[in-house]
């Protein structure tokens, strides 16, 4: 008798997740807006949306933002985890402080994170980065007003917030590596960079892949941090797919186009989720 145990979960997920997802598919084939119910069904919204001239630009920005964030978070997360593990072994002072500080950034709500970074990037005297650069007689940088720089500023703030997750995953994976492997390689006379490339990295392969997929999905779905940081600007320089979808629905009230865009997001996320599922350890529970 499994059913009663699962009923609440099925109810919540069905009513507040599954049903809306199915509705999204229905709406994508209508011409509904927030103001009027759709009255005709057809493929026209689909075709119009995919043919929108700005879509390519949006997808490109999304690709740059997601790709750079994922690479940044993965590398920095791995580096922090390596140093934390090493620091714990060698009992270095400050290891716990570093770990805790990285994790604190991760608890900061996305909206607040965006506002905080907006203050840092501000070009007025109270901007926390330019005044730091001035101290070293560098800058100023137009962090948010130059469209070529703004996207990297958004990436930087996202890496700040997201690195902790990668760090936790990498830390757990590093701890799970059998120490015998390091002892054996030490006996073989491997140098530390050799140990890293021939023992650590291969052992982390699965964890890195899983982590990359998870943070890709997370970054793809990020929009609160960007809406409060740049609002998508200057121009469209930082308008990622999720923010574009948000604007189409809630600024232009264009429900059916928003639904099509949602489906694009859904397809990308679920595609990644399927890849993820293939890399999870198999087995029917325990």
């Amino acid at each position, binding site marked *: 008798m499994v059913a009663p*145990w699962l009923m609440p979960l099925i109810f*919540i997920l069905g009513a507040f997740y599954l049903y*809306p997802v199915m509705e999204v598919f229905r709406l994508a084939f209508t011409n509904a807006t927030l103001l009027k119910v759709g009255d005709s069904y057809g493929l026209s919204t689909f075709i119009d949306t995919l043919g929108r001239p700005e879509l390519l630009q949006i997808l490109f920005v999304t690709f740059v933002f997601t790709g750079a964030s994922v690479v940044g978070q993965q590398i920095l997360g791995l580096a922090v985890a390596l140093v934390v593990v090493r620091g714990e072994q060698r009992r270095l002072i400050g290891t716990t402080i570093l770990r805790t500080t990285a*994790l*604190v950034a991760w608890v900061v709500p996305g909206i607040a994170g965006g506002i*905080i970074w907006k*203050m840092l990037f501000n070009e007025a005297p*109270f901007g926390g980065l330019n005044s730091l650069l001035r101290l070293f007689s560098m800058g100023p940088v137009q962090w948010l007003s130059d469209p070529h720089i703004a996207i990297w500023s958004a990436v930087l703030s996202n890496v700040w917030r997201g690195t902790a997750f990668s760090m*936790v995953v990498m830390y757990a994976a590093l701890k799970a590596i059998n120490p015998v492997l390091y002892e054996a390689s030490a006996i073989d006379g491997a140098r530390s960079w050799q140990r890293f490339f021939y023992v650590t990295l291969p052992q982390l392969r699965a964890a890195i892949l899983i982590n990359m997929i998870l943070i890709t999905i997370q970054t793809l779905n990020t929009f609160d941090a960007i809406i409060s940081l740049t609002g998508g600007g200057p121009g469209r320089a930082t308008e990622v797919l999720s923010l574009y979808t948000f604007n189409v629905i809630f600024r232009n009230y264009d429900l059916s186009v928003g639904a099509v865009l949602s489906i694009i997001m859904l397809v990308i996320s679920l595609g990644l989720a399927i890849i993820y599922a293939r890399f999870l350890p198999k087995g029917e529970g325990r």
Partner: protein
Amino acid sequence: MRASTQNRIGDAFSYLFMIVAFVFFAWPLVWLLSLALRTRKEIYLGVSRLIPHDPTLDNFMAILSSPKFALYLWNALKLSTMSGIVCLIVALPAAYAFSRLPMKGKGPWLMGILAFQMISPLVIMIPLYRYMASLNLLDNQPAATLVYTALVVPMVTWILKGFMDGIPKSLDEAALIDGATHFGVFFRVILPLSKPGIASAFIIAVITGWSQFLVPFLLFTKESLTPIAVGIFQYAGTQNDSSMQVLAAACLVSVAPAIIAFLLLQRLILSAMTAGAVKG
């Protein structure tokens, strides 16, 4: 000798990296605090006044004494705590079933539940908004609580299932042999032994609820129901350069509860996260 020199060089590099990384992670929050403690005059003095000469708590006073902010904080606390509780009520029996009861297709079920976590809340918000509007559930905190719950319950179910898997099966098997029902085992054996897992799952749900933006942004039209994440966003939009110090204080007030909760329960959360991350 050689090994120890190598170690010392490694230590030096480790410290160097730790300092750089620490500055990167801490600087935004340090800067926020510095701005929040300044008077309007000192705001324009940049890093030369990292530690203000004339520090003031006036900005915090202004924020904390504003009835609007008190209400935002209270709303966020109410919504996130309620959703944490509902989340446990929903996820605990499911986690027990997935951990202990025989069922067909357990793997696909678990993956299916996790797949929801991969769907952006943005995708479901359009129809959800219409459907809540037609049911007259806009501006309704209990309804919003259920949406919060749906967004975090897949992850919480996984965390709890992982935790229960770690409880020896012999304990509940013994109770079953003694004539206990699954209901009894769940309440008398599993729940008491799961306390640390329950606590960390609850805290993770509450912290996630605290930072929810989209759901309350759409489902609440009344300012009196708005939680802090939406409140701070709207507040930031109305501020200008000369009130940066107040905005900084408001921002700190909005992030402090999550940070404090996290710091107090760091070890608990980390172990749940690690278990969740490694097992899926």
